[in-house]
């Protein structure tokens, strides 16, 4: 168990392709950190640099107080679960699990005990004599996790381990992985493109885009106080809608101009926007904080329904206002359909404000 830090880490593949830019991150001992981002954002590259499978172009990666840049993977005391499981196809499940222990020169009876223990924990003890190709996706994935946990390493590295499982199994594995990590207390870095996985499992989330770390904070903070408009739209499902607005004033009070409509501001938001002094804003609203109605509302904005999707307990209505589209949740009894005129409403204290130029959040 060890703390892990990235210090000014860069990764470029030559020919101008930069995968990771100036990554700085301190992961505490025993913490579960999730690297979240779309594909190609540099999250897997960062993980592979931690594992020692990828050369670090510049900067330092530190385990505890030791710089590991030049250490090969075998000397880093890590365990990794790969996206495609990477089991040894020609070896039995038992041998797959035993391999890390054999490399560590653990005595045979100890290997047997620990493999059996790990297999029982993951409920694969009846599969030990089989080979990987005879196993289902979920079983393979458990084997891959088993191979990681038999050895009690310093750091767990997960590279989208459950991305290929079906939705139901994924939900179950999320809670099992979380439970396992909590029980073992091993520092964990978990790469995923699925914001739900990150939100549900991680102690802290590192959101990455285009090789740049966007925000590194607790799931709640990332969700409630996104650092910029990109994080705001990436995290949360269904995602936040962004609207382009301008600062204006109505009868001496500060307000937002949204197309031909104006939106009045509460005192707190008005003070915040006044302090920032920006004119062009990106204003975000989460679907569950917006409402639509077929009847005119006091502060409603005139709009038209673009699409209507049933989510189960409620309906996601996407409405069109000029060029902008805004998603709002409505009751299943909501009667409107595509093309129906309706009214959108939200409270200004539930809005998120970002600078239209660089997308950064307007400070509180």
């Amino acid at each position, binding site marked *: 168990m060890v703390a892990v830090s990235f210090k000014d880490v860069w990764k470029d593949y030559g020919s101008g392709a930069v995968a990771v830019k100036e990554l700085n991150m301190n992961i505490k001992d025993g913490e579960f950190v999730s690297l979240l981002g779309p594909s190609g954002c540099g999250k897997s590259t960062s993980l592979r640099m931690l*594992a*020692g*499978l990828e050369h670090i172009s510049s900067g330092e990666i530190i385990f505890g107080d030791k710089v590991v840049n030049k250490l*090969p*993977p*075998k000397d880093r005391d*890590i*365990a*990794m679960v*790969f*996206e*495609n*499981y*990477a*089991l*040894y*196809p*020609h070896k039995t499940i038992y041998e797959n699990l035993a*391999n*890390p222990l054999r*490399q*560590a020169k653990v005595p045979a009876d100890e290997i047997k005990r620990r493999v059996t223990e790990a297999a029982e924990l993951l409920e694969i003890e009846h599969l030990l004599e089989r080979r990987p*190709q005879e196993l289902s996706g979920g079983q393979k994935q458990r084997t891959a996790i088993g*191979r990681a946990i038999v050895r009690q390493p310093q750091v767990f*590295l997960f590279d989208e381990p459950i991305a290929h499982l079906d939705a139901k199994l994924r939900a179950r594995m999320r809670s099992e992985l979380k439970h396992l990590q909590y029980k073992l207390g091993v520092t964990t870095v978990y790469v995923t493109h699925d914001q739900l996985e990150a939100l549900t499992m991680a102690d802290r989330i590192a959101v990455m885009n285009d090789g740049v770390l966007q925000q590194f904070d607790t799931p709640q903070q990332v969700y409630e106080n996104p650092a910029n408009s990109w994080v705001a739209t990436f995290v949360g499902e269904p995602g936040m809608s962004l609207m382009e607005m301008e600062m204006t004033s109505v009868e001496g009070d500060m307000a937002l101009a949204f197309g031909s409509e104006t939106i009045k501001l509460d005192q707190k938001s008005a003070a915040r926007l006044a302090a920032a002094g920006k004119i062009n804003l990106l204003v975000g609203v989460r679907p569950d904080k917006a409402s639509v109605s077929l009847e005119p509302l006091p502060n409603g904005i005139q709009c038209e329904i673009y699409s209507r999707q049933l989510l189960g307990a409620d309906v996601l209505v996407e409405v069109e206002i000029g060029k902008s589209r805004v998603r709002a949740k409505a009751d299943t009894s909501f009667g409107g359909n595509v093309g129906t005129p309706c009214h959108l409403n939200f409270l200004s204290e539930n809005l998120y404000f970002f600078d239209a130029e660089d997308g950064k959040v307007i400070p509180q």
Partner: protein
Amino acid sequence: MASREIISYDKGVAVKILKWVSPVFLAFYLVWALLPLFIMLMASIKDLLDAFSVPEPGDWAGITMFFDFSPTFTHYIALFTENNFGTYLFNSLVASIGSAIIAVTLGSMCAYSLSRSEFRFKKDLLFWIISTRMAPIVAVIVPLYAIFRSVDLVGTLPGLILAFTTFNLPFAIWMLKGFFDGIPYAIEEAAQVDGQNRFQAFLTILPLAAPGIGAFVILCILFAWNDFLFSTIIGSGGAKTLPAATKELVQPQNIDWGKIMAAGVITTAPMIPLGLLVRRYLVAGLTMGAVKE
């Protein structure tokens, strides 16, 4: 999984004719391919008088003459007692298996590194490697003989093994590189994370290239075993193999057909099962990894 059901569509006349013609063609082909082997086998266990007794043209009933003989192993015994075929058989075995082992060991390591690393001129290097196989052996045998002569390798088994390896190695590298390309990186990365160094990780994934290695070893043995040119020129003197030795049974004053047939059987027999094996390995190797799991 694709459906295994055989769907029959309406067939044209040409297809119907082909359906009847193809078995006939195959039957002829079978006779054409197997008859020489059969005659060789029969002639090797007949004495010379029986071997040369053939019926008159048109006398189909006389075909029984072909089977009317008392089997004898004198030719085989003579080969080993008078003509040193024990030594030649040994030379053949050592040269072919030896060169196969060396070529596959060096070839797999080279193929692995060429598969896994990226560097400038890699394609040119690969092309250069295979280009050494583009010239026919006859074209290089004279300079090769001069070189081998100057380092005293002519007529020795190591010399013959080296010559075979020179010609098998480029082939090994190209063939095995294809197999390594098909093995996902993640498996050896997992091995490294498990605590193995790069070489141990390479050994871990080596069994996954087994179909390729198996096929290559067999092809390599077949090449060396059947080779005539290297064996007569580089091997002449102390390292003659079976084909070269068989050729020497043809003397200006006497062609010893019985012995030649027996030598032919000795040379061919061990390669038939290998030929069947290579077919299985090659098919397994070519389809491996073609369809994603």
